[in-house]
């Protein structure tokens, strides 16, 4: 009788701790998702990047990938030439090649002109031309009797798609490639073959049609991701030169917005557009604005560059927790700041796992024994990571940590803990 009772008690004891741990974990994930969802960049930042971005090198990359696809097309064209006399009627395939060449050239030219997005109708037109090419070429190379004739122009449609990888979304291009590949596969499987082995070159042809655009999309995607991440880093690196405490760009914009809203409201009242006494909606707006303004004027200044860097970064924001009540990060010199930022950056960006996170805790300042002039202030920076195993930490990260200060590291449960001993010039001596 005691057995079940004991088990019941133990279950009851265990359950809360297990579930609370799960709750905590869920809360963490939720928190991170929230931060990710609500992330936004300052308008100034968006404008600066938009003015300079223009696909961020995508155009240059697009040209190269098109050339590369051109080699595959060259092979297919060569094959078309050598099987010229095997065609019962080479005209459809010839027409297909002519149409494909024209379409590809047009697509390349427009893609370079556009440099950003290709409109839907143009993409649809290019795909329609591709479809016609596939049909013409398949019709020309099907059921050719004893001599095997393989589709050529139909497979070279892959090169057309490559020309579009930088101006269309990846999934558009992948979808088109898969559809073309499926059509070619159906064509290959339904063909009547005197020699069943001719299926193999047909399959190879399909691979040549589908693989290049897929790889192109993959390369462009990781290229873009790399560029985006680098951009994010460069944008927040500008915080390094801030004074000890500064108003962040977001807060600055927020204050400007509140001022503008207040101005509009006050102007409406002054001009009689809003009749006094004010309605419930307007007076609520006034109350909200007053609260926001008050908060901005009261706080607004006590933030360090590190806080701004994390808040303004799309990659760091969701994954980094900062605990720096005394604003000690603001006391670091520019080299230390840069290194600290790079450290967090490398820790987060080197792992492909999404749940990697870093917690930073600065301070408190260590008591100094005896008062001497020019004595350095010392405080610890404690850096704890989750989801970043020690062996995956890049040597460059350690190099950056050493710039911040001498450190001791330990590893526990796959999470890394680094304690950096930071010494800085006493601002009182300056």
């Amino acid at each position, binding site marked *: 009788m005691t057995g079940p009772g004991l088990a019941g008690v133990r279950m009851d004891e265990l359950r809360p701790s297990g579930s609370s741990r799960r709750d905590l974990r869920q809360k963490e994930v939720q928190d991170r998702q929230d931060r990710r969802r609500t992330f936004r960049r300052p308008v*100034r930042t968006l*404008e*600066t*990047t938009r*003015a*300079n971005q223009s696909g961020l090198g995508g155009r*240059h*990359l697009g040209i*190269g*990938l098109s050339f590369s696809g*051109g*080699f*595959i097309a060259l*092979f297919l064209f060569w094959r078309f030439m*050598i099987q010229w006399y095997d065609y019962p009627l080479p005209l459809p395939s010839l027409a297909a090649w002519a149409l494909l060449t024209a379409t590809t050239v047009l697509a390349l030219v427009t893609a370079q002109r556009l440099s950003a997005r290709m409109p839907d109708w143009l993409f649809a037109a290019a795909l329609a031309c591709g479809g016609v090419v596939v049909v013409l070429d398949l019709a020309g190379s099907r059921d050719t009797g004893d001599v095997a004739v393989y589709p050529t122009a139909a497979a070279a449609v892959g090169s057309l798609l490559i020309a579009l990888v930088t101006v269309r979304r990846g999934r558009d291009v992948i979808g088109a490639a898969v559809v073309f590949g499926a059509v070619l596969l159906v064509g290959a499987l339904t063909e009547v073959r005197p020699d*069943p*082995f001719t299926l*193999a*070159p047909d*399959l*190879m042809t399909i*691979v040549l049609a589908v*693989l290049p655009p*897929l*790889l192109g999309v*993959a390369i462009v995607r*990781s*290229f873009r991701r*790399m*560029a985006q991440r*680098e951009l994010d880093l*460069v*944008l927040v690196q*500008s915080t390094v030169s801030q004074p000890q405490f500064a*108003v962040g*760009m977001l807060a600055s914009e927020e*204050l*400007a917005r509140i*001022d503008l809203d207040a101005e509009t*409201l*006050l*102007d409406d*009242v*002054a001009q009689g557009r809003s009749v*006094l*006494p*004010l*309605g419930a909606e307007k*007076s609520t707006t*006034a*109350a909200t604005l*007053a609260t926001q*303004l*008050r908060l901005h*004027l*009261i706080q*607004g*200044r006590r933030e360090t560059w590190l806080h701004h860097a994390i808040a303004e970064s799309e990659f760091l924001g969701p994954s980094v927790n900062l605990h720096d009540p005394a604003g000690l990060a603001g006391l670091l010199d520019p080299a230390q700041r840069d290194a600290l930022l790079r450290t967090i950056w490398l820790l987060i960006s080197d792992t492909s796992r999404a749940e990697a996170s870093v917690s930073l805790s600065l301070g408190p300042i260590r008591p100094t024994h005896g008062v001497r002039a020019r004595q350095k202030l010392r405080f610890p920076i404690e850096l704890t990571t989750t989801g970043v195993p020690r062996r995956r930490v*890049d040597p*460059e990260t350690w190099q950056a940590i050493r710039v911040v200060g001498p450190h001791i590291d330990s590893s526990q449960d796959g999470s890394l803990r680094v304690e950096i001993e930071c010494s800085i010039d006493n601002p009182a001596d300056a």
Partner: protein
Amino acid sequence: MQRIHKERDRLLRRAARLAGLSGSIAVVVVMLVPGGFSLTLLGRCLPALVLMVTGQYLLGRSGRMRWVALVVLAGVGMILLIGFSEPRTSGLNLVEETAIGALAATAMSSVALVLVVTVRRMIALFAAFAATLACVFASTISSPAAIVTLTITICGWFAVALAGWWVAQSVPRVMQRIAAIGRAHLAERHASELEAQRRQDARLLHDTVLATLTLLAHSGVGVNPSALRQQSGDDARLLRQLRLGGLPTPRRSGVYTLEPATASTLGNTLESVKQRFGRMGLDVDWHGSGQVLLPSDVLDSFLLALGECLENVRRHAGVARADVTITDDDTTVRAMVTDAGVGFDLLGVSAERLGFAESVVARLRDVGGNARLFSSPGSGTTVVLEVPK
């Protein structure tokens, strides 16, 4: 520069892994065309294929030369196995030839992506290409469609090497452009900081705006509408000037000097506060010294706190006049705001005190000052504000 190369290498080796693995899938598909490969040949090729796939996967993780070598050697081994492991009379069949083509042109050529970055790796690239080509040539020489296999091998390697080389060139280009954006953005950040500083420096302006907004939050009840409209117009005009980049000086109230002066006299500014509350129906009587010099930030906070106290009197005390007594000694300036209104129980008020603490006390503490509150129901309220000189 080091990081750019790292990013570039990571991009290239990931692409190499993807290209290699999908190429290997293509090879398997071709090998499985019915009747093309004998079972023994399939069995012999399997270990080499597994080795190659392993190499391709690991290449994507570290990009080391040893994985390149593993992929190339396993591929070469497979080509030679297909070509020479079985005695034959009339060359390879079409499936075997195509499998060799797929192997050489896709699965093996993927290593070219990581070999385009340095001179030493370029040499390795040529060596790997030459070895592959030689094996393809040797294996297929006696077969009918040997020329097709050779051509596709060459085209495949060229296409992949060109793509890799081009990506390697694109990365530093885009990094340079991003660095340029970073420089532009640094300038933007400085501009933003200056802007924020300018707006925060205009604290006096914000204080009057805050007072007016608070009135409007109560729908403007209890204030003369035309006076409130006038005050709103003044505030809106000043806010517009601030927005357009000026440091506006209020004209009507004539007092708020928003230049970052180091010190200002208290007396001038008190008159404007009096005028403002006069418009709203609260008579303020000043007593005591008006000629006290205060640093501008202290003055700002002092006036804000004073304004908030008077606003509280106006809204809650139920009387139309308040007395403000200013005294100062060597270190401190003190303002005593007194009214003969309803008063309140200090312990019974929570929400009000919250507002008081936030707007008055926090502001004063900011500049090293303090505020004290004395009140009881029915006998009025007295607030003492202190700021250091």
